[in-house]
């Protein structure tokens, strides 16, 4: 089968996958909103406009205004940057450390090194991610950077385990044996032959961790441990709206919907990608 045919059928598969289409569209909308906010927002988000405070949705302010008269649509657009940036960097940290650790553990399967890496992973799992975040904030103070580190640390064992289990299956295959016979060392085999073959798994898991990262960032900034003012964030918008929820429900509604739709989009996209990369699982779960 030529490459061109494979690619075309992959593209056709993608277009037929409803999860991937809906998820991709939702993700695209929020990513685009974040990017557009760098060059244009309907209203500035740092100004105070007391005359227009707590206005319900109208033609001028499609999602209404908050208690400082700031436009909620603009706040959500700028807040998308924070959410996406925190989640992306946290996934990056998880992959940067987790993938090499998983590859290393798989290449030295059954040795002390493997055992130490896997037990270390278990240990990080024993700390719920929120507790790690709380410890880090208690020590270094609340900030977006510390939120990223806290979420990122928790991603490391996720990617390490996934990479190791994917790699272990591959090490049994004939093409790896061929590479060993050809005289390649285990480090070279890991990066040249194992890594490209676990990439699909990593992309799917990366999408899921991305969505979990957005939820975690929202939770942390809701309790004041994430991005600090004046950086807009969805979680803090919800925290600020809480005392006004009885007379200004729109302030609580829209940032929450933004989180829900972004996370939903990423999850659907992850499901869709899994279907395409791993046809055996299709319809199964």
């Amino acid at each position, binding site marked *: 089968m030529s490459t061109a045919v494979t690619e075309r059928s992959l593209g056709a598969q993608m277009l037929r996958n409803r999860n991937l289409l809906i998820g991709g569209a939702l993700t695209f909308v929020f990513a685009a909103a974040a990017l557009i906010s760098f060059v244009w927002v309907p209203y500035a988000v740092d100004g105070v406009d007391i005359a227009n405070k707590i206005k319900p949705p109208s033609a001028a302010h499609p999602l209404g205004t908050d208690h400082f008269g700031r436009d909620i649509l603009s706040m959500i657009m700028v807040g998308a940057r924070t959410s996406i940036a925190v989640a992306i960097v946290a996934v990056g940290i998880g992959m940067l450390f987790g993938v090499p650790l998983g590859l290393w553990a798989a290449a030295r399967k059954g040795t002390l090194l493997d055992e130490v890496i896997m037990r270390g992973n278990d240990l990080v799992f024993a*700390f719920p991610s929120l507790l790690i975040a709380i410890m880090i904030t208690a020590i270094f103070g609340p900030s977006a950077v510390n939120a990223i580190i806290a979420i990122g640390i928790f991603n490391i064992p996720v990617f390490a385990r996934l990479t190791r289990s994917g790699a272990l299956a591959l090490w049994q295959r004939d093409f790896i044996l061929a590479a060993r016979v050809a005289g390649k060392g285990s480090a070279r085999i890991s990066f040249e032959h194992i890594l490209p073959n676990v990439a699909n798994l990593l992309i799917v898991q990366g999408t899921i961790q991305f969505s979990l990262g957005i939820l975690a960032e929202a939770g942390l900034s809701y309790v004041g441990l994430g991005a600090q003012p004046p950086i807009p964030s969805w979680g803090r918008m919800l925290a600020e709206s809480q005392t006004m929820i009885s007379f200004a429900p729109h302030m609580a509604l829209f940032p929450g919907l933004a989180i829900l739709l972004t996370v939903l989009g990423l999850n659907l996209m992850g499901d869709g990608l899994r279907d395409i990369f791993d046809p055996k699982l299709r319809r199964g779960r």
Partner: protein
Amino acid sequence: MLRYTLSRLLSLGVSLAVASVVIFLAIEVLPGDPAAYMLGLNAQPDTLAALRDELGLNGTLWERYADWVGGMLRGDFGTSYTYRSSVSEMIGERLWVSLPLALYALTLSTVIAFPAGIWAAARRGKAADVTVMGVTQLGVAIPNFWFAMLMVLVFAINLRWFSAGGFPGWDKGVWLSLKALTLPAVALALPQASILARVMRSALLDTLSEDFIRTARAKGLTKGQALRRHALRNALIPVLTIIGMQFSFLMAGGIIIENVFFLPGLGRMIFQAISARDLIVVESVVMLLVFAVVLVNFMVELAYALVDPRLRARA
């Protein structure tokens, strides 16, 4: 079984020891003096010296670690700097909110997820399956503290069925207290129930494609009978593991939900301690939560080995 239990017990001990060292060192790496950090910039030198003495900061690193761990083993978690009261007593009071909340949520999540998962698996591909999968997809994506706020808006502010927050205390009546914990428990349970229902469904579908189910159908059982008598019990193993893991999420998730509803649990205690720079409380509560999580995982592993003899052999 004994050998397996001992090996898990050893690994439990090692996990706890390493966790305690990590937490202890994390607090130790604080730039500067914890006492100065706790008192802030305008501390008087003599107050500082007194606090250093009280915190036992004058010993070596090893002495301080031994003090902290030794104290916890005897049930003495130290004295809160801000509240001037014993941390163990504070934890004791707060645990009576956090633990019932986690158990309440776990019960709700299980009671919702089991029927939903079984229903979806039994009607795979039909409307029921599509509905359960759609609702759980939303349940996984919804931020639970936002869901909690919406429930407050609907059930507390508009309908006035529940209070918007606070906790009356168990001595004011079990019914009132359970009522105060209901909205928080539902908020906590929703994402967990969604995950559990999906696991239940896929575990059942895996089991339903096994040969012994075909044999059961061949000897004349209906699809429903085969599901109830043979598939369900086998599908329970992965489901039980997930339930055990969810306990740790519930303890941690409870931290945020307690803040939404102003519940006087461990979660609010941690936040108050952070803003008051009361590091002893943070250190001890985090250690206690990690202990709870590690212990529950240990018990799940044992239960798992009881159900599945193959696992004992592997140890």
